[in-house]
């Protein structure tokens, strides 16, 4: 659940590094971020993820990645970052008026 790769994402001496966990619910679905956990290494992170996030058959596949390896967009810059798509309403099908009697459209 740490969407913040902050200093806790690195290795604090005496504390296992933080990992982000992604689970594929079933075949055909995306892996989805479900939370985070601490583990000494990648392999143990997978094992811990199984115990913490899939106790009830929640998934068929798990990804783990060190939180410190994630680069995230900055919330302060979200306006300039996403602005280019904001004014392009013509990308949506609802932008176009089609007479109601035209079938299958």
């Amino acid at each position: 659940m740490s969407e913040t790769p902050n200093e806790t994402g690195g290795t604090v001496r005496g504390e296992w590094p933080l990992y982000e966990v992604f689970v594929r619910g079933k075949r055909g679905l995306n892996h989805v971020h479900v939370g985070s956990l601490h583990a000494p290494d990648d392999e143990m992170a997978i094992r811990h993820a199984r115990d913490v996030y899939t106790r009830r058959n929640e998934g068929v596949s798990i990804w783990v990645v060190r939180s410190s390896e994630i680069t995230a967009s900055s919330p302060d810059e979200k306006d300039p970052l996403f602005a280019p798509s904001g004014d392009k309403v013509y990308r949506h099908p609802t932008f176009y008026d089609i007479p109601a009697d035209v079938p299958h459209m």
Partner: protein
Amino acid sequence: MTTETPEAQLGQEPGAQQREAEFEAQFRRTIEAKDRIEPRDWMPEAYRKTLIRQVAQHAHSEIIGMQPEGNWISRAPSLRRKAILLAKVQDEAGHGLYLYSATETLGATRNELTEKLIAGRQKYSSIFNYPALSYADVGTIGWLVDGAAIVNQVPLCRTSFGPYGRAMIRICKEESFHQRQGYELLMTMMRGTDEQREMVQESVNRFWWPALMMFGPPDDDSPNTAQSMAWGIKTHTNDELRQKFVDMSVPQAEALGVTFPDEGLQWNEERGHYDFTQPDWSEFWAVVKGNGPCNVQRLAHRKKAWDDGAWVREAAMAFAEKSAEAAAPGADTDSPDSGAARAEEVAR
């Protein structure tokens, strides 16, 4: 930071104050729209502190909450009951971990929170300072204690801080198993002997008042509620949730064939709710301040588990570091290729 940071000077810039005000306005708009605050958004320091305190307390409660029932795992009367109880206690550990993760998004560290708990500087729910004296308590805890927790937690799924709300959704899904296994256990005992029925009633008598206290002090005596509601952290007052719990529990008790130890408990047609007697709030404050039946024992046990586990945490870390060293290219050879291999590794 190795130099005098630009951030430090930023504070004195005339534009900084204006930027701060813009952030605050954005935060307020998000809350008013009942949208979620996410970890990297700007938030008032007091909001962050309140959340860390509340979510850490919640996490600690799940972890300490393993103790009262954990005692009964080896004493469960059948393999079926043992497997159920084991799964339930394991869930509590999981719930603690989800919540610790949520606090970490606010900048707290796991070790720091555990150490604060052990030092008595952060609290956990007072209910876990009461002992589980009989096996019927396993059922009563599932029915009433987890039942009260569900009433508390369902509205928290829509709390304003995203990671906390998402942890609550996950927890609530699993909590329903906890309540049902408890109620089913009590139903089984109620179909048994007179002695078993007495055990259930005695257990319910002991847990009723502490369960009512789980919602926290009355609204008049809960100074943080107004601010937490303004921030969208809480969405209902303590008294509203307590009433809801009583209304839900009475018909369940009737179906089970037990009574609650409250002579003032009766349906109020006008209000459309049950009237009930308030628990002894002086007892509540005494337990919060550390004078409950099991406060010392609970913390001592947690400290022992933390201390005893230290070598495991260290050994796992040392093993991981050693394995990484051994796996690094050119770790034990000085072949001319090793430099190229390293370069390739970096390029990837």
